[in-house]
Every structure is written in C-alpha cells, then in structure tokens.
C-alpha cells in the first residue's frame, strides 16, 4: 500500500488504528508529507471596498497604493 492508501484507510476504517502502523509505513507517510509543497488554504476574500479587480497580476508598488 502507498502512504496515501494507508492514510485513506486510516481515515475511512474505524478499526484501522494508527498504532498498528509499522515503522516502514510511518516513514513512508513522513516522506510523502515532507515532499509536499506548502498549502495556501485561503479561498475567499472580502475586498475593503467595491473597487474593480485589477486585470492581471501586478506585483508592483502601483497596485499596492491602489488597494490600500
């Protein structure tokens, strides 16, 4: 079983207990976890006012000024 399949089973099966994991499985999960990229959980935003959303990505100062 892959690390993800083990985690799926842990999540879905009430009798599949984390303490039953062997060292190899634990290591596999740790390895998979450490290989993942950071997670941006933010998906909603209330803008401070009803202004237009800028057309494209602008990392410049100009946009900063407009927003604040």
């Amino acid at each position, binding site marked *: 079983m892959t690390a993800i399949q083990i*985690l799926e089973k842990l999540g*879905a099966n009430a009798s599949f207990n984390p303490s039953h994991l062997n060292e190899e499985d634990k290591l596999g999960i740790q390895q998979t976890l450490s290989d993942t990229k950071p997670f941006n959980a933010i998906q909603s935003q209330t803008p401070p006012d009803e202004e237009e959303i800028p057309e494209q990505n602008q990392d410049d100062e100009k946009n900063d000024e407009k927003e604040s």
Partner: protein
Amino acid sequence: MSEINKTGSIVCVSTGMTLGAHMSPICRSHIEQADVVFAACHPMIELWLQEMNSDVRSMQQFYGEGKDRRITYREMVAAMMSEVRAGKKVVGAFYGHTGVFAWAPHKVIEEAKAEGYAAHMEPGISAEDCLYAHLGIDPGTYGCQNFEASQFMFYQRNIDPSAYLILWQVAIAGDKTVKRFSTGPAYRQLLIELLTEHYPLDHKVALYECPTLAIDEARIDWIPLSDFTHADISLITTMVIPPSKKMHKNQQILDRLAELDKKFQ
C-alpha cells in the same frame, strides 16, 4: 439562464477536511468519472485525488505572495472554464465544503450556467462541521454567527454576543491589500480591540485546526482573547468565540404568544 445544450460541464465537489474520512460517495464518483479534475486542497489530499483520476491539476500554482488573491481566484475560474468550453467533463475539487468561504466554486458555476453548460455543486464536510464535533458545541444552543475576519473588520457588523461567533481566515485578518499570506500582531490587536466591544479581554476563545490526516489530532487551544495578538496561528486556524452574555427574553413577543395560546388552545 440559457438552455443546457452544450457538452462541457462542471461539478464543484467537496473533499471534506480529513483524507479518507469525509468525502461523500457522489463526490468521489464525480472525481472518478471526470475528464479533468482541478484541485484546491491540501497537497496530501491532492495526492489522494490522483489515485481516483489520472488528470488532476493543482490550483496551488495560482497563489503567490504579493499577488492579488482576486486574480488568483479568477485564474482558477478561467482554468476550469476553458476546459468546460472545450467540451470536457470538469470537476473542481475544493477542500472542506466546496461552497463555504470559497469564491471560485460559486463563480465558476455561475459562469458555466450563464454560458449554457451543466453546472452544480456537491456539498461536504466543512471546518465548521468538524469544530462542532471536536469542540463539543452545538450551534443550536445559543445560535452561531460566521464571519470572515477581514470582512468583520472592514464593515460595521451587528453581532450578538449571546451567540457563538466563528471567525474564519484570522491569519490574514485586516489584509486590505488582498495579497498577504499573514498580517501580524498589530492587525490582530485591532481585531481584539473591535471584539472587546462585546467580549472582555480575559474571555476564553478557541483556536481550532481540524486534522488533514487521520494520524493527527485536532488543535483546540483555549486562550484569553488578549493572548491572540501573539498566538501561534496559520492559514488554517479558525477562531471560535463562545457567548459572553446571556440570552435576554423578548417579553413583548412572549406576552403576545401567550395571548395567541389563549385564543387557539
């Protein structure tokens, strides 16, 4: 709304919060049968989705520190819509409940419907659902209010301190730039100031984080409101504020109900 007569379609599905535990059978089925799955989930959940479908595309790439998040969300919608327009069966898989505090799923469904494509949302288990279980609170006991922390700061909201208050996205509370991945102590201090209109500084609030993996425990830290300034929080932290006041009887309505009872007994 135009008639549904085109081949492309979009379903926004909910993955739930904990890998393996929360996804409904219908969400899983949509993922398995999709031509392409766009994912906005924890990377471990995205790996899980890859076991259900061979074309899973992460939307984490659209984020960037210093990039306006409204652009990020529009890029998500554009990516999903371009495949819908190409006639594909598209799934947008968003973590938790796909439609809770998430802009892109609602927007893509609205756009797809307006262009005549089949589009709908499948509900799921949100952070809010999990916190009721983990914190042992029932929103029906005193009522419950939910706000995005920044919105709570930007606009004058009438809150009821005799009900629960849940604040989402507290890590970026007060971010007017819509670009940051965190604000900081000075911004949190201002949020506390706003909250002290209704809650004493020593009022206990919970910092809650539901586990993504079943091997982890939920984080439930009860702290005095004043300690929030320097508390350890992240983009997944939700703040839960229990009532600070008792519910007050509405005597006028109670009297009128008594009159009605007499009449209709």
